[in-house]
């Protein structure tokens, strides 16, 4: 039974891998209930719900800042009303793959900075590649991280290709952001479209604050009995300030700025109205370069003089660890499958996107001829900056990148274009397919743990492959289904 006019009328997957519509044009089983319930809502009703959503986000102050003119403009990060659903068996596979990957990356970083550098000695990764990485940090040598949890919070970007295979697109091991949207999206969905949740058992995400706090307490220096944890932010003018404050609130800990902390005799304190209070764990949302003006940028006013020496003395734990950038270098990324095999003696569960390293002469000459079919990315940038998408690039642009690659083959990688999967997304009064990706969040505490789902980003512009918030990207609430049916009367 379907109403006279459905918002799905005329929807066409256009040959892409569609998350909702299967190959035989039927709605995939795990989406059936949501599609049915969505179809019951008229386009007018849906736009009313969209207004409700906008109000909820604005009044909660869930905004990011676009810089440029004077004060900066605060925008909301638009959440599409159609949720993305991942069935239990697919999630089980993703989760296992993420745990495996982050476990290996933690071991790799610990091996590099406080270990024997076995992966280098055994020639799994070339030494020159490590030391030439912009994210490689000499000052991190000898700084211990209890239990080797160097990537305490990792955000691993996953895409789904034309065959429906989940692949890792990039690792974010420094300061991945976006978790606040995951939690706020879910909160908004339960208020704006409560009927959509239906009878399915959707795994909750709201324990994130508690899990993060327990992971942070877990990596406290051994001497700290009841460790004090703080969140360190660059301050209110940072574009992710909302998230920093959100996380401090979720964990019930202080949100501090650099000048709130002082180091005395290699011990870190925060300045309170009742005097100095010792700090044991710092969840910092400041880049390495700004953390401590003594070894790093002396012009930084965001950091804390002496912080690194305190960490080296084992009196405070900094999370995420310093120097993680070497492991999310996009050229090192190409070696992650080998690192998994090396450290864990397992086959990688989640494949990489096919990647070419350009200092290898054979691969480079092949890529030079195929630049119009490939994606070229600088190795240390993130957020889609400075990349070239061959099929949509002009001849001049391709020529420019060819020159750049020749001049600095270490500075770039080339990848096969991935036709990202698409997902029906509300556009005006009907559905259109839009490309999506997924950033799950992985915590390394007592064990490595993945928050069910993650941030699904959606390229709101038609045919765009760019999902970044600054370039017209939006998000979707992401549901991971549990096998267990929900008990009667249990809240979604």
């Amino acid at each position, binding site marked *: 039974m379907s109403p006279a006019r459905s918002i799905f009328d005329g929807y066409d997957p256009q040959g892409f891998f569609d998350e909702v519509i299967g190959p035989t044009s039927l709605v995939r089983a795990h989406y059936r209930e949501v599609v049915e319930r969505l179809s019951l809502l008229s386009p007018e009703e849906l736009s009313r719900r969209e207004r409700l959503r906008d109000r909820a986000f604005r*009044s909660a*102050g869930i905004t990011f800042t676009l810089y440029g003119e004077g004060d900066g403009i605060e925008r909301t990060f638009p959440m599409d009303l159609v949720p993305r659903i991942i069935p239990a068996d697919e999630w089980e596979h993703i989760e296992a793959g993420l745990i495996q990957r982050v476990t290996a990356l933690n071991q790799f970083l610990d091996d*590099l900075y406080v270990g024997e*550098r076995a992966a*280098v000695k055994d020639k799994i990764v070339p*030494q020159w590649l*490590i*030391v030439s990485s912009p994210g490689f940090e*000499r*000052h991190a*040598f*000898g700084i211990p991280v209890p239990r080797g949890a160097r990537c305490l919070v990792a955000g691993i970007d996953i895409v789904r290709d034309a065959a429906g295979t989940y692949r890792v697109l990039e690792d974010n091991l420094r300061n991945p952001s976006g978790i606040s949207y995951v939690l706020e999206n879910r909160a908004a969905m339960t208020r704006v479209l409560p009927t959509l949740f239906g009878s399915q058992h959707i795994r909750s995400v709201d324990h994130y604050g508690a899990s993060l706090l327990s992971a942070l307490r877990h990596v406290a220096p051994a001497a700290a009995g009841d460790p004090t944890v703080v969140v360190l932010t660059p*301050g*209110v003018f940072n574009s992710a300030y909302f998230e920093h*404050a959100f996380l*401090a*609130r979720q964990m019930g800990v*202080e*949100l*501090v*700025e650099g*000048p*709130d902390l*002082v*180091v*005395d005799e*290699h011990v870190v304190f*925060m*300045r*309170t*109205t*009742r*005097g*100095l209070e010792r700090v044991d764990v710092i969840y910092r949302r400041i880049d390495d370069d700004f953390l401590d003006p*003594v*070894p790093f940028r002396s012009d930084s006013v965001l950091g804390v*003089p*002496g912080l*690194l*020496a305190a960490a*080296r*003395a084992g009196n405070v734990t900094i999370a995420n660890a310093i120097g993680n950038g070497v492991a999310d270098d996009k050229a090192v990324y190409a070696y992650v499958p080998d690192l998994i095999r090396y450290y864990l003696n397992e086959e990688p569960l989640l494949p990489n996107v096919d990647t070419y390293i350009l200092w290898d002469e054979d691969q480079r000459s092949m890529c030079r001829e195929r630049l119009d079919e490939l994606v070229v990315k600088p190795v240390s940038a993130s957020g889609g900056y400075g990349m070239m998408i061959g099929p949509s690039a002009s001849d001049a642009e391709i020529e420019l990148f060819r020159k750049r690659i020749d001049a600095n083959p270490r500075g770039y990688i080339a990848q096969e274009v991935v036709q990202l999967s698409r997902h029906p997304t509300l556009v005006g009064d009907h559905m259109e397919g839009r490309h999506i990706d997924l950033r799950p969040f992985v915590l390394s505490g007592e064990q490595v743990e993945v928050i069910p789902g993650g941030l699904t980003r959606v390229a709101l512009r038609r045919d765009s492959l760019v999902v970044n918030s600054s370039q017209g990207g939006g998000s979707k609430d992401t549901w991971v289904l549990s096998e267990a049916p929900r008990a009667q009367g249990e809240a979604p």
Partner: protein
Amino acid sequence: MLARHAESLFWTGRYLERAEDTARILDVTYHGLLESPPHEAQQSWLDLLVVLNVEKDFVRRKLPLDASAVSEFLVLDPTAGGAIVSAVGRARENARSVRELVSTEFWEAVNSFYLELQARDLHNDLTQQPYELYGLVKRRCQTVAGVAAETMPRDDGWRFLMLGWMLERAEMTCRLLNVRYSELASVAEVDRFHVLLGVLKSASSSEAFRKVYGASMDPAHLVEFLLLARNIPRSVLYCLRQAEKDLLRLGPADELGPPQRLLGRIRSELEFLDVPELLTDGLHEMLDHIQACVREVANAIAFQYFRNLQVEITPVAFTPAAEPVGPD
């Protein structure tokens, strides 16, 4: 709580009160002078600048000493710290830096106040409707105070906010008395009513005054009322008593710190004051003395709570425990 947060809350309160009181003082001066000859008005404007402690800044700007220049200066001048627009802007900046500690309603009240001032044509307001503008500032400040009282938890953050609020008000009430009292004492009895009423209105206290003193036009009563009334929220003693209550709660619990001692001293000095004696001995000196003490209390608060370090912080040179050994 973090020292920085406490300091921001303290200044949020101070700047909001400063904006409100500046509006009150401007209001009463402006409307009191409408019927005065120009040379008298000039002296009054100068007196006003002196008690607000901004006369040097004003002179440096080489502005004419008249109603419109002084009003513009005290409402709009971005370099005058007490000017209403910049006080509200600073209150907002401070509130913004503790956005996570104050209630959403409080932040929104402060922010929308600021945005409304930004959106208005204040030059036009000042030439056409100064009364309306000052009324708006007073109402908005009172709204913010009411929202704070209704939505903020009574924790240390609240106490620092109120502490700033009350100390600023105590100081500004002294200033208000200072600027108008000499005139009050010198004018002929018939004009007194006008001046007295103006001062009381600017302190939102004319009805309360009437209830206590009936039709009195005795300047001594006015001084007694605005300085020493225990139940009038704009009287100096009331403000100091409130501030003292918050300070004692802030601790330390088992001893009096310098801020508590200093505040207790000036509060008891006021409580044992003899008004007729004060009026013969010199009200101005006493008002200046109270203001100086309040400033001392504020300094002691900053030292005790905002910059309380306990240890000498010397820059730590970077001395790695072990020489970095890289794979290069």
